């Protein structure tokens, strides 16, 4: 009884290392499905995007979606894979209610691409190799009236997702910790989002992760049996489940037990993995080449065209930001963490904003606003055009930097034009000297100790007084002018 070892509380051997391989399924951002013309839109009423082909009706036949092939090739190139000029679709045969043909069209012996890698930052940086990348179709969705299919009174099926194009990316077992797994997935997500291959939303199921885990003594051959983990619905779940598995398997081995070769599921609420089925009677999918589809042959010209038209990768853009635009490396890393953010920045620059200034505004203010509210860039109604306008208003001295921050928040809430906000709310800077002198006199009178400080040469005290003036004017005073007036009065 290997599981009983869990209760004995023996020490986990220190020299055990985990070996993890990840299988990642990613939905491609095509308008139509892999083998028919139905829409891939997420969230439509059940069974509204279906036809004889994706329902697997008798007599229907698949036709390959060229755009799906193009996106899969982009993914393969972005992940440094070798694209096979000739690959084949194969049938993976198994019975399940959400699989209307009784087989899934996938690729088996001749996948689209092989032999790639992803660099993870570490430290230390590490190369995670990719064994293969292939195209396939998604299955439908079952909804059970009850806990699961075995106990449900009835089940309902939605075939909207059925036939949505997927790529499966299989890593080599190069991952040695939950943190490396997380980094690999982050990197994968970033590259796939950046190149427009997928929207990689785990919560909508457009990125799904299965994991193979086993343990071995440091630097030695495999020790434990391979355990497959399923239901990993977030990066957090991946990290937690792998951590749990390392612990579980270590304890079993420490107690002299044997790890069973099996498929386990991650139970989100209990934060444990539970056995789903023993792997020993491994399913025989009876793969064979799909006779309804000719081999997928990609010409060198076509591949070259895809390569040429490929959107830049995050690293390429990061390099450009640092070397050409002079953005600090750390900031450039954040700007290239998502395609949309970097495109937002690019547009600010192309509209004439100083790159560093634009970067600062995006990283500190825009991201600050988004993060504090948990919003994505999509949910913010403002635009690069307005951010550039805002920066211009500061440059021209129309508004102060402090006021600008408030205006940006308003822009983010309402999508209004900053010039309009300034005009309608009277937020222009005050440069009327007589008015400023009056306010400064008040502030000097109210803060004798600070005045004392200035006379003793404490420059911080000047800043304090300037701050007080800004406060009294609702941030509208021109801070430079205030500074000069205070200095001239007290020195």
């Amino acid at each position, binding site marked *: 009884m290997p599981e009983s070892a869990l209760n004995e509380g023996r020490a986990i051997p220190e020299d055990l290392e985990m070996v993890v391989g990840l299988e990642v399924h990613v939905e491609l951002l095509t308008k139509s499905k892999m083998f028919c013309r139905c829409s891939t839109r997420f969230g439509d009423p059940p069974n509204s995007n279906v036809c*004889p082909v994706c*329902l*697997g*009706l*008798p*007599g*229907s*036949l*698949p*036709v*390959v979606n060229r755009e799906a092939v193009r996106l899969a090739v982009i993914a393969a190139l972005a992940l440094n894979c070798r694209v096979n000029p000739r690959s084949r679709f194969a*049938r993976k*045969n198994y*019975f399940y*209610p959400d699989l*209307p*043909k*009784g*087989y899934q069209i996938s690729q088996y012996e001749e996948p689209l691409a092989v032999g790639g890698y992803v660099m993870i930052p570490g430290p230390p940086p590490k190369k995670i190799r990719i064994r293969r990348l292939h195209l396939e179709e998604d299955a439908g969705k079952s909804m059970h009236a009850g806990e699961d*299919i*075995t106990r449900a009174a009835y089940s309902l*099926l939605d075939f909207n997702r059925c036939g949505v194009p997927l790529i499966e990316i299989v890593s080599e077992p190069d991952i040695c910790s939950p943190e490396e797994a997380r980094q690999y997935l982050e990197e994968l997500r970033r590259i796939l989002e950046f190149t427009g291959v997928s929207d990689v939303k785990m919560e909508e199921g457009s990125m799904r992760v299965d994991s193979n885990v086993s343990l071995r003594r440091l630097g030695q051959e495999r020790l434990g049996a391979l355990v497959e983990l399923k239901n990993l619905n977030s990066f957090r779940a991946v990290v937690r489940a792998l951590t749990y598995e390392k612990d579980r398997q270590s304890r079993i081995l420490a107690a002299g037990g044997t790890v069973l070769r099996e498929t386990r599921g991650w139970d989100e609420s209990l934060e444990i993995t539970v056995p789903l089925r023993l792997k020993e009677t491994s399913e*025989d999918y*009876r*793969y*064979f080449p799909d*006779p*309804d*589809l*000719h081999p997928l042959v990609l010409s060198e010209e076509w591949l070259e065209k895809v390569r040429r038209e490929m959107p830049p990768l995050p690293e390429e853009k990061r390099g450009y930001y640092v070397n050409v635009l002079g953005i600090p490396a750390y900031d450039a890393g954040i700007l290239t963490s998502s395609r949309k953010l970097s495109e937002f920045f690019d547009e600010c620059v192309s509209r004439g904003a100083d790159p560093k200034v634009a970067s600062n505004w995006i990283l500190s203010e825009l991201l600050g606003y988004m993060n504090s509210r948990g919003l994505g860039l999509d949910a913010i109604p403002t635009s690069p055009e307005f951010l550039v306008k805002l920066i211009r208003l500061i440059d021209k001295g129309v508004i102060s930097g402090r006021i600008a921050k408030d205006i940006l928040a308003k822009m983010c809430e309402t999508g209004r034009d900053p010039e309009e906000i300034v005009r309608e709310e009277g937020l222009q800077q005050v440069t009327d000297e007589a008015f400023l002198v009056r306010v400064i006199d008040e502030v000097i009178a109210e803060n004798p100790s600070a005045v004392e400080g200035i006379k003793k040469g404490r420059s911080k005290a000047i800043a304090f007084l300037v701050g007080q003036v800004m406060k009294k004017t609702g941030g509208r005073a021109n801070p430079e002018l205030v500074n000069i007036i205070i200095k001239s009065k007290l020195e």
Partner: protein
Amino acid sequence: MGDNALWNMKASALLELMTAGEVSATEVVEAFLDRISEVEPKVGAFLEVMREEGLAQARRIDKLRQSGEYPGLLGGLPVAVKDNICVAGARCTSGSRMLANWIAPYDATVVRALKEQGAVIIGKTNMDEFAMGSSTENSALGLTRNPWDPRRVPGGSSGGSAAAVAAGEVPLALGSDTGGSVRQPAAFTGVTGLKPTYGRVSRYGLVAFASSLDQIGPIAADVKDVCLLMDVISGFDERDSTSEDRPVPSYSRVLSKSARGLKAGVPKECLTQGVSRGVRECFERALEILEDLGIGIKETSLPMIRYALDCYYIIAPAEASSNLSRFDGVRYGLRAEAKSLEEMYMRTRRNFGPEVRRRIMLGTFALSAGYYDAYYLRAAKVRTLIRRDFKRAFEEFDILLSPTTPTTAFLLGERTQDPLSMYMADVLTVPANLAGLPALSVPCGFEDVPSGGNGEKETLRRLPVGLQITGRPFDEETVLCAGYAFYQAVAAAVEAELTCMRKGLGQVG
């Protein structure tokens, strides 16, 4: 009733009459519907007769003609469709209990083409379940008899379509041919059937049996009528990735070409495969006729085709085992009630007939881990060798000749207990499917056989024999041209027998 009855006429003649305004489409369709009512009890070719839809379509065609509009290439001609080809709104059973009540929600591409060209679809024809069989006895839904002898099978799996044409119930029909299912029943019933090149005709809407072998093909009384259907159903279909995007000739027009000077090969292997004496004699006479027509004939060899049947019975069941997985009771078709999913699958799929179950088992086995290389992969390699044999032969010859079947129609029940003897009925037709080649069966004579039945008084029955002409890929033209030239030479004799048989069929008793 007689030689001049509309139902005894060929499609081309009917079309002329309708075009000349001598007869309306409605009259034509009514004549065939009446003929169906009259002889169907003896033949059993149809699973469904679409009387009302047929008459409505005929009236539409008549209106078009009256208003001077062109009603299409087939304007007003009745066509029967094998019941594994989808016609929107009609049941499409594939001869199976599994789909006995399934109504197709869409038209197969060929059916759409028929409709666009003014054809009148008047019924769905009986077939071996999921096209698996050579006698139509594997239909779960009805018995079809050979119009030449009601105690005999019509062949299969397109037995309903062939019997309907032979019996004069319809001038044109569609079948499907995976291992001979158009040609073999055409030969057994004395009509003409073509299996086009793989990829010539769209498979979209054909319930798949073995996807790499299936091809829809026309069945009609003569080569000219077969060409008429080919002109309508051929060509690229963007819904079928295995259909080929290449120019389609007008087949009706190639008939005016001469067959003189064509080079024909006779594979010696084809005459050793259990060919009966009567069939051999007919075939040899056919060769003489072809020589008289100026076709050069030489013996040749296709050594690998001796493995064709073995190869076929790995590949076809393997693909079928996967193609038939969708009949699981979940979404459409028959569902057996059960307490669990597993049990539902099992009980539902028990409703496949014994031959279908046998092939699902065979195919599942051939694809299983540990057996794949020894069976499926090896069969795929043999298939390549068979293709190579044909390719080599076609460097020398324009066409290859053989009997379509080793024997004439056998008795109902004669081979049902012995699957291997049933499989032998396709031994000469299977190679063309494996190699994807066009192959025509055209009537070439008759074999007189004792009418069988123990203790009964022996009388002789005339049973038709078919000549098979196989051609290069996408060279249906040459095949049809040779077939037409040959048929002209035997037409009078063949059609006299046909008319005589048809008349006999219409007589009470």
